[in-house]
């Protein structure tokens, strides 16, 4: 339980980090600290508080939060390695650690190379992967997952739900990458009006930035349709499964908020707080879709832990792809 709570804290910290990263980009502060890993020559953690001014406040805070999240993931990985009986979960910890280290290096070199678009976009896209990994670890170490959500009967084995949720998850991620591309190429206001585009349903003229912006708006429509299809399926066929209904409700709230924030970002000419909330809400849509997708796949995963084995530190090689029967036999 303690491990689960720690994983949950780590995942929540990752969301805070993404918001802080959104603030850095939205305020144009990415280069306000020209050196890395130091800050104006100071060791990062000894940089005087009175110098946290202007753009430095956002950039330096982002670096400190990133260091904290990196440390939390390091502890989480070590904890999983010592205490987690499932090999694939332990591996997830190491993957998350590798991803967050890569993320830090990408953040550093994008500063040292003056924010080249491909590096900045990769930095933004990998941030979402790190968030997905910490969320997945939190989910699969939760009591609900370990108990197979059994208080409501056997976990549903719904092939359609699995497929539609997986496709939705992929589309949400692609949409976020397109959003990051739009953000880092300065295409956020390439289409300055909403809901129309230059007064039309489809832009009457084009350039690469307008195309990227247009793709993000079309992506928003696709995501909304796919989320409605996924959540609609849950409400229609799995109304009695709270582990599916709750993320579905949350998704509907989040996607409504996200579309509103996207519109407000354009209409407010990229007001930085609105813009940053748009970034982090997008990340929350992604991980909530991930939670729903993983729960839809729950029946395909092996059972987690043999109580005695856990207590003695024994490790089982179970993981995704095992049938209920096999999992039951192992349990």
């Amino acid at each position: 339980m303690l491990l689960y709570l720690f994983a949950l804290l780590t995942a929540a910290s990752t969301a805070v980090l993404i918001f802080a990263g959104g603030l850095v980009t939205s305020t144009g502060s990415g280069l306000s600290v020209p050196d890395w890993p130091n800050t104006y020559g100071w060791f990062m953690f000894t940089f005087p508080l009175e110098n946290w001014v202007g753009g430095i406040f956002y950039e330096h805070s982002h670096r400190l939060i990133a260091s904290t999240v990196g440390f939390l993931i390091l502890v989480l990985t070590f904890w999983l390695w010592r205490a987690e009986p499932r090999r694939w979960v332990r591996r997830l910890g190491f993957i998350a650690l590798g991803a967050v280290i890569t993320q830090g290096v990408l953040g550093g070199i994008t500063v040292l190379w003056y924010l080249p678009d491909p590096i900045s976009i990769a930095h933004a896209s990998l941030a979402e992967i790190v968030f997905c990994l910490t969320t997945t670890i939190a989910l699969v170490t939760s009591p609900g997952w370990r108990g197979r959500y059994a208080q409501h009967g056997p976990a549903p084995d719904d092939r359609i739900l699995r497929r539609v949720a997986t496709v939705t998850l992929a589309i949400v991620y692609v949409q976020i990458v397109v959003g990051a591309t739009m953000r880092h190429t300065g295409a956020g206001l390439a289409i300055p009006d909403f809901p129309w585009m230059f007064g039309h349903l489809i832009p009457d003229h084009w350039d690469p930035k307008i195309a990227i912006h247009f793709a993000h708006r079309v992506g928003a429509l696709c995501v909304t349709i796919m989320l409605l299809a996924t959540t609609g399926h849950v409400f229609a066929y799995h109304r009695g499964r709270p582990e599916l209904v709750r993320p579905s409700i949350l998704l509907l709230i989040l996607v409504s908020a996200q579309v509103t924030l996207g519109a407000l970002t354009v209409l407010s000419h990229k007001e930085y707080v609105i813009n940053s909330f748009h970034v982090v809400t997008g990340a929350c849509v992604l991980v909530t879709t991930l939670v729903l997708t993983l729960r839809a796949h729950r029946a395909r995963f092996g059972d987690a832990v043999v109580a005695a084995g856990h207590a003695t530190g024994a490790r089982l090689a179970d993981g995704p792809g095992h049938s209920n029967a096999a999992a039951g036999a192992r349990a």
Partner: protein
Amino acid sequence: MRIGSSILTLFVVSVALAAAACGGGSDKSATPAPAAPVTNPVDPATAGSVTGKISFMGTPPAQEPIKMSSDPRCMNPDAKTEAVMVGAGGSLQNVFVYVKDGLGNLKFPVPATPLVLDQKGCQYRPHVFGVEVGQPIEILNSDMTLHNIHAWAQTNQEFNLGQSLQGMKDTHVFTTQEVMVPFRCDVHKWMNSFVGVVAHPFFAVTGADGTFELKGLPPGTYTIEAWHEKLGTKTASVTIGAKESKDVPFTFSG
């Protein structure tokens, strides 16, 4: 063994490509050699000048006060935006005027004296200026706070320096002509400056009266360009004879 032979192949191919790129020098006579640059070519006995006034037509935007609250050490209640500064009679300040074309391959001595770009009161001083290619720029922090100096060069090498203490200095030399290179402080978003980097001494920045003078020009026909950070560019062609001075006014509209 396979890796070794691959490396050897790669090496041989690279050497062959390098040799091909060097061209061997066998057909040098096919391309006419460019004329040698003439150094220090201005004869004071024949040099002329171009003068003029830059005017603004229309209602100039008001110079807005700059909010510096994000850094208490910057608080300067008198600071105002400097993007469009219009004086009496519509004279337009901070316009960079230079000879864009017409000097051919004339080569001029480069001043060794550095030009100072100061950060004072959390604003750049000067706001618009010019330097010659190869002339040093001394960047100074006169403020009690930190600044980063980010030069958004396109042709020259982009750079981003940090100056964390009052009195810090850095020197930079631009190596290629580029009009204009923006400077920006990412700590204090309102801080920006522009430098025109040219390969000759015929440039000027208009002051409060909007006038400029490009003096010491050899007789010839020139393209004169006037650049403003918000209002864009204007060009004019002018021919000057020996000891002649021509007036080339520009008008920008808002």
